[in-house]
């Protein structure tokens, strides 16, 4: 399990797959999820292989998660905000075609 080196930031509350999780203001969604849990944060669209945040700098796209209803966002490029809803990305996203 990864631990925060600095734990003095303001606490914000997010949900990860419905579970309430404390995060720190200023950190990325990927960092907050890694500090909360081990294991995969998404599965790939082609083979379904489990993946987790890797580069933490916007390059590898391994940290894709659904953030506030928007699928396939890069968790490492989005800062947590109070009340944010995060879901692991399961395979390929849907295309909302109801419009």
């Amino acid at each position, binding site marked *: 399990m990864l631990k925060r080196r600095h734990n003095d930031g303001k606490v914000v509350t997010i949900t990860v797959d419905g579970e309430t999780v404390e995060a720190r203001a200023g950190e990325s969604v990927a960092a907050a999820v890694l500090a909360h849990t081990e294991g995969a944060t998404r599965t790939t*669209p*082609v083979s379904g292989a489990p993946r987790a945040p890797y580069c933490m700098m916007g390059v590898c796209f391994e940290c894709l998660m659904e953030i506030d209803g928007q699928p*396939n966002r890069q968790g490492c490029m989005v800062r947590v905000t109070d009340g944010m809803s995060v879901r692991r990305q399961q*395979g*390929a*996203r*849907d*295309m909302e075609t109801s419009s």
Partner: protein
Amino acid sequence: MPATTAPGNFDVAVIGGGMIGPAVSLGLLERGLKVCILDEGDDVLRVARGNFGLVWFQGKGFGMPRYVEWSRMSATLYPAFAAELKSYTGVDVGHAQPGGLELLLGEEELAHRRHFIGQIYQQGGGKEYEVEFLDRKQVEDMLPGVGLGDDVVGASYSPVDGHVNPLFLLRAMHTRFQQAGGTYLPHHRVSAVKKNGAAYDLITEAGTVSAPKVVIAAGHGLKQLGPPLGLDIPIRPQRGHILVTERTKPILPMPMSAFRQTVEGSIMLGVSAEEAGYNDQVDTGTVAKIAERAARTIPALRELNVVRTWAALRVLTPDKCPVYAESKSHPGVYAIASHSGVTLAAVNAKVASGWIAGDPAPEQFEAFGVERFDAQKTA
């Protein structure tokens, strides 16, 4: 790294390792000929890396019924060609022939398309032409759950249309070529082709390669290589853009000319046409136009992230139809030029190769010759 200079005794030297050269070469190898492909490095235009991946029939061959038949023949040969590549190389080129649509926005586009398709039909002398028009309701029934934009009034449809993964196709053809005994010579940019007795010498920085027959399948390189060999063919570059979205669950059951969903789930959006010389840089204004039209056609596409864009340069003839020509001044030197290297890969491998190997030319093959451009010059 310059390859070692090739051993001689080639029956055919093919200039160009794009979509056309390897396809034709596969057929030459099948006929027992000794073949080499002379290719350049990765620092050249490489238009065969920029394809959209349609195996397309409808709308091809305006003004040249022979090209309509040729495209149909390639589409018909494709399933076996793809299966053969897979069985030999293990590479699944992702070919499918579910039929294809060209979605039309507004009555004016529909009328224009009807006229255009009608002319191709008439030029064919009333022969069967597998393209029909669908109204909006029929298109909706064909695309359950897709959600068409309000402007979509209908589509032209052909059951002959399909698609393929063009990069896997290129890889599979190259793999099979070497597996079947072909000699691939990268970094062999041909600067000149010279007659030497009964053969031709192909001069490259990495050495000279000789063969009695030469096929120029060099894309835009034909512009420089052709004229001294009696093959002054008026090709020009025409730029096209492609956008690729993030992967989604399967939603598009068939290619739609400007859109197709890959096996892996990406949606590819195209296809523009600009006269930009040899500039293959991406133009953001064009990208925006493609995205806007895509969103008008299928509004849900607006939600998707675009993950890649690129531009590539079609090898275009004045009538947009392919060239298959043997030089009159230099017998045994052939030129093939087309912007439909993906669609025609199967027929190039299975039929055009025979013409080069010395079989009688396919019926009415002279339609693809260069004389048609002379007529245009004097007209």
